[in-house]
């Protein structure tokens, strides 16, 4: 069965006809040429396909595109403002937070979504207090980023890169 859907991808309205079996990930990569979300495991286990879906981080390999008709999607390509990288992207570069880079677009989108969640005071599994504020220490960052796997093991510098941006954002 075919269906026609519209998506707003990185600020641009796109309309496509898809088979209902198409995931959002395949629609972006194979039909719209947006290739930064990566097909790592294709089973919701690695986080390489993480994007911002209607403003929140989400994996899209387990999302049927037809179920997200009208959605607004921001991928790693859409985070930069012109030539100016998003602070998270810049921090990944400066802190050497990648080796092969395959998981990086997902890591970057996940970090952007995660920082927004933390800024809203959302607790995590390692938060001591469900009600009080969040101090985004390394343990918190590790826990909140645990849905993004990195085969190269660049985790140490990924945490450092995110910490740098978190500190900059919380500075007065």
């Amino acid at each position, binding site marked *: 069965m075919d269906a026609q859907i519209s998506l707003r991808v990185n600020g641009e309205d796109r309309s496509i006809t898809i088979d209902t079996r198409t995931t959002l990930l395949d629609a972006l990569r194979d039909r719209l040429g947006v290739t930064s979300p990566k097909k790592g495991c294709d089973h919701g286990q690695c986080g390489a396909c993480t994007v911002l879906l209607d403003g929140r*981080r989400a994996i899209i390999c387990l999302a049927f595109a037809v179920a997200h008709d009208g959605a607004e999607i921001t991928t790693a390509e859409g985070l930069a403002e012109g030539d100016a990288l998003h602070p998270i992207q810049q921090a990944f570069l400066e802190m050497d937070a990648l080796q092969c880079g395959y998981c990086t677009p997902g890591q970057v989108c996940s970090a952007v979504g995660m920082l927004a969640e933390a800024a809203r005071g959302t607790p995590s599994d390692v938060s001591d207090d469900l009600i009080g504020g969040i101090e985004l220490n390394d343990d918190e960052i590790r826990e909140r980023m645990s*849905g993004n796997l990195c085969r190269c093991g660049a985790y140490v510098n990924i945490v450092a890169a995110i910490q740098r941006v978190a500190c900059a954002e919380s500075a007065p």
Partner: protein
Amino acid sequence: MPFEYLRAEDVAGAVAAVTEQPNAVYLAGGTNLVDHMKLGVATPNLVVDISHLPLDQIVELPDATVRIGATVRNSDLAAHLLIRQRYPVLSQALLAGASGQLRNLATTAGNLLQRTRCVYFQDVSMPCNKRDPGSGCTAREGYTRYHAILGASAGCVAVHPSDMAVAMAALDASVVVTGRTGERRIRLNDLHRLPGDTPHRDTVLTHGELITAVDLPQLSFSQHSAYRKVRDRASYAFALISVAAALDLSDRRDAAGRPTIREVRIAFGGVAHKPWRATAAENFLRGAAASMENFHKAAEVELAQAEVFNDNAFKITMIRNTVASLLADLTRRQVGAGDLAGQEPKP
């Protein structure tokens, strides 16, 4: 397999559409169903999308019941201030499950109805009574580290994978279900089944019935509750075992000066085909002193009926120690550390 997609416009329409088609399914967050469709575990010919129905609210009813809509996302439920304040065990259970980007998709009812992560169930080349009734159980002769120790059957040793449902079992939640003939309520503890000789049925729901909400009843001591999960890696893994508990201590002390337990709720995850409400342990502890010895004994009473394999015998010790340490923490939070000082858990 090609399938027809229908975006439901209301509950009645969704229920009618699925009820009429024996091979139709509901789609919400999709994090389990879509995976199963890729694996060939699920092959529906009609997918009815309920994720756009207005079932995404959390409201407090006049009798102080908290009603959670079926499509409330796991992340939103965990972060909701009312849940964090009144039912911390539920927030903690949700936050212990999956990852941030999965919790943003996964829904409340979908979490309840997710299927076992038994690797033999997910591998269509293997016999599995749950996936293919009558074909046999590969797990029984296979690697059983992640399998049941309570309530299993000759035909199935799978466990229910949810963390959220374990907290809800301890809180005595109920689900609101709409079917072709109207609405009914099912206690969460009665929703999931033990496998028996029909392990292909995870729950008591009939085909086409749709969970529209989960109700959390008022519980005077629900703020004294917590969830503890033990897993093979620090985060983003299913439970080996987990324990949800709520504890209400009375002002009365026993002869030894120890605080006594007025009421307690305990449920286990990772040990059975359903969230396992530990009523025998609760009965043992009600009126007893809050002591490490009693916490261990309570777990042992509950586990008296356990049957283990070589690969999962560790779950007995793990449950016992986790029950004890969690109840000890809840005790300390209410009466201070002194009452349990020096009472070390057994090895």
